[in-house]
């Protein structure tokens, strides 16, 4: 930083913060490396191309911090946006028990009490956690965090519309009991066609004989089924059951989820389930059956041809942020992750790097964006599941020595 500090108070504070340890001269070689560090920059931008509730004049101020951070950090409870929401409004989903039964009070559906509720949150992990002598820390890495303020200008009056904290790059294990999520949690699910065949044919399941023949063929050909997953409404028997936010269109542009009450919302609020949203299908890229698979594997009522397609978020207490196969220094970090709080609708700039991405549309309340990103070698997802364990879950990554969580 090359600040010229002219304020006496600032100078006094600077003097007080001088190191108490003894100062040592640095060599000429070391001196040559000192070029006036600038670890803070401030960027201003504006946006007025939005439509609907994101129309109008927005201004942004982004404070970039040049920092490399490595940490193992835990939080017992993280709760943001604890205010009243009504189920069914703005994409607010009902609260459920672990089996998906909606929770009611006085006969009415209720939502979780905050937009984001994460218990036993953790960044980073402990390897060999059952071995106190040899346990070691695998840090969560962050590069260049930033704080951004959004303003909305209406009738000449400027007001704070939102604030977000994000990272240019982040990599490592993120853990937590995801009780309530508002925002984007993108994932990818895959598995061989044999899983769907085994669960629905061979005398069990709900697939028709024709579907079983086709699935059997897909199995014989070693077909790999792939789909993306998002937050969904997991409240069995309610109007929004199994649906995610937005419109599901097939290759011909036909709407596949016309009954969804969430067609016009950008994301679900206070969700506690994820999965393949109603109306979305699996694909089999590169397979000889590529054109048949979507018709066979449309998701409906949280099942895909009888195979469960939704699961409670608490099943998956750890997600890997970034590309696990590439180290941090070589670009393995995820881009575009952030958490924000808005007093009104805000179109945040999208830093995911995905081609065609422009703005992340957010509304009043809290928002967590753990979304897909472009790693430079393709689109990567923070949540990667396989068909046979998605509905059962996998153990959490440990964040303590001696126990998985709770320290």
């Amino acid at each position, binding site marked *: 930083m090359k600040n010229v500090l002219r304020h006496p108070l600032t100078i006094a504070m600077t003097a007080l913060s001088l190191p108490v340890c003894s100062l040592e001269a640095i060599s000429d070689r070391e001196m040559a490396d000192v070029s006036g560090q*600038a670890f803070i920059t401030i960027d201003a931008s504006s946006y007025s191309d939005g439509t609907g509730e994101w129309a109008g004049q927005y201004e942004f101020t982004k404070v970039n911090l040049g920092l490399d951070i*490595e940490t193992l950090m835990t939080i017992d409870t993280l709760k943001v946006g604890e205010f*009243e929401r009504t189920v069914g409004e703005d994409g607010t989903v009902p609260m459920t028990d672990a089996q998906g039964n909606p929770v009611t009070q006085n006969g009415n559906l209720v939502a979780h009490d905050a937009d984001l509720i994460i218990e036993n949150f953790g960044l980073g992990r402990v390897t060999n956690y059952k071995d106190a002598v040899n346990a070691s*820390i695998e840090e969560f890495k962050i590069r260049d965090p930033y704080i951004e303020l959004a303003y909305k200008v209406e009738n000449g*009056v400027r007001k704070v519309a939102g604030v977000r904290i994000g990272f240019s790059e982040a990599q490592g294990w993120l853990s937590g009991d995801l009780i309530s999520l508002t925002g984007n949690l993108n994932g990818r699910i895959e598995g061989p066609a044999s899983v769907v065949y085994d669960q629905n044919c061979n005398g069990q399941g709900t697939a028709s004989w024709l579907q079983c023949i086709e699935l059997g063929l897909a199995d014989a050909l070693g077909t790999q089924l792939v789909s993306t997953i998002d937050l969904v409404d997991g409240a069995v028997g309610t109007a929004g059951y199994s649906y995610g936010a937005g419109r599901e269109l097939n290759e011909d542009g036909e709407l596949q989820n016309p009954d969804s009450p969430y067609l016009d919302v950008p994301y679900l609020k206070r969700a506690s389930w994820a999965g393949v949203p109603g109306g979305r299908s699996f694909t089999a890229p590169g397979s000889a059956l590529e054109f048949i698979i979507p018709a066979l594997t449309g998701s409906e009522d949280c099942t895909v041809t009888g195979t469960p397609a939704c699961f409670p978020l608490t099943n998956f207490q750890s997600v890997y942020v970034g590309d696990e196969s590439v180290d941090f220094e070589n670009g393995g970090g995820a881009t575009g992750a952030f958490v924000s709080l808005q007093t009104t609708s805000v179109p945040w700039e999208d830093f995911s790097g995905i081609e065609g991405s422009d703005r992340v549309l957010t509304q009043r309340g809290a928002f967590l964006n753990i979304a897909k990103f472009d790693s430079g070698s393709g689109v990567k997802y923070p949540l990667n599941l396989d068909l046979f364990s998605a509905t059962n879950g996998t*153990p959490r990554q440990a964040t303590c020595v001696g126990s998985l*969580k709770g320290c």
Partner: protein
Amino acid sequence: MKILRSMLITSMVVSAAAFADLQALDDSQMSAATGEGLGFALEDFVLDTEGAELSVTGIQSSAGEEIDIKWTSLYVMGEGSEEGSIRTPGQIGSYLHPYVIRSLRGSGGLDPNDPLYNEKYGQINNELALLELAADEYQSDVQNSATFATFSYYQGCVWGQPGCDDLATVGSNGVAVQAITNEIDALNSSRAQIVDTYSLALSALENQMNSYYLSEIVPKEATVAQEQTEYDAEVVELGQRLTTAFDAYEAFMAIRPQADCEFGDNCTGLNGSACPAIGGGACRNARTAYNDSYDSYEEQQSVRQDAYNDLIEARKDLAAANNDSESFGPAGSYIEAVNNVEEFKVLCGLDSSDFGSCDGGLITRKGETKDGIESVSIALASGVERRDGLDVGASFEFAVNSVNPDGSTSPRTDYIDINMKGLFIDGTAFRLWSAPDEQGDDELNAEIRLNLFIKELDISVCDPSVCDNDPVAKEASTLNLDNMFVSLNLGYGEIQPMRLSATSDGNFEFELTKLRPGDDVDTTSQEDMQAFYDDYYENSPKSFISISDVRMGSSPDASLGRITVDGLRAQYLKVTSRDL
């Protein structure tokens, strides 16, 4: 520039502070150290820049453009100053509760019954001298800002403000007490649900789980890892063979460009890839090389598919072992058992060995929190008044070039006006000491206990030329944060000191070190090391951040509710600055 209207130093005891290199004391020096220090308080304190401005230069945008920043106002006054407009004297400490700078010994190694033992310094060896800078401290739960802030969070409003001063809402059954009681009831309900699931003792269940883990999970995890390694290797091999085949195809096409053969075809003389009968040896060799290498690629596809199938089978086996619902009788699968046991330990303490007892963990911590809230609530109901804090405010102007969506830029001025009403930092302390690092060189270690409680924090970004003349518009565009409390605890004595240093290229480095077992811990013993970690988890202070309401303007419809970061702890943290 700044005007100190009235500053009275009421108490100066013994000056012993020195910002010099800190050294370990020898025995004779140690025997002379008895905890001297300087205590001071600033009474009737007022600071007001009264229109003077400070310019900060050197901050740039990412494009390298200079950002002109003006610090247009700063005030520190007593609470009730109406955003610095009424010159209200403030109190920074008092004769009975002064700020202090003192040197003293650590209490590590002393018997807790020793009169010189102080729990605050218990993780710093008694042979080390430390320098402490501490703000005022209060024993009364009403005056102690940490306790009062927690009460305010649960009460849900700024105590003393209109609409939040009804004595009927406090007392032993007040709003805050009921709120924390409901929270504890919910935790106890979760605990009961877990306990009711099991018929055997916790320790017996853990033994059973451990056996199952070793016999069923570990081998299957190893198989998955092995199959994954093999599959990854086959994928790499597949890629190499594909590259080889493509190179061979290109080599063939370079020799015989007129060949009617696509990559992936079997190129023969019968399908348009004939080579000249005379002098066509190189062509035939290249054609054969391509055909062979493509066959090799196809064979590898089959090998990769087999490896994938093996991997899938291994994963299925592991998933089945994790999720077999019969594994633990009524308790269900191994994963369910792990989740339940872990959750019980969160609620009742990591060293729990019995479902019947609950002497630590979240339930105990919340119980202690409830005691403090109850104490404050009862005291307020009986008429005890909370002391006033400080009002602190500052205004800034930023002249920036705003980037428009089309890439052009427009000049813009941003305004930020921050007003803190009722600010307290009692309980804050900075402790510094010198100790040898891994190389045996002396290094400066530190520990921070920062308590910051602000009853109301208002942030306005409206252009003063518009909003100063329109109070309604200003109110509607101001972001209000009520009962903001930050309790930041960094460092835990010699076990996890905080270090500040600079790198040779001019960047700073801040580190909360990895845990350092003391000399009394046998680092080769599982029991000793686990006990060391458990002690750290149980006793090192966590950090907390809470805001009871975030609101735009005064409309309840514009409320974003509470923000809670409860029990934050960094087991390791290293922050290094870098040039952007």
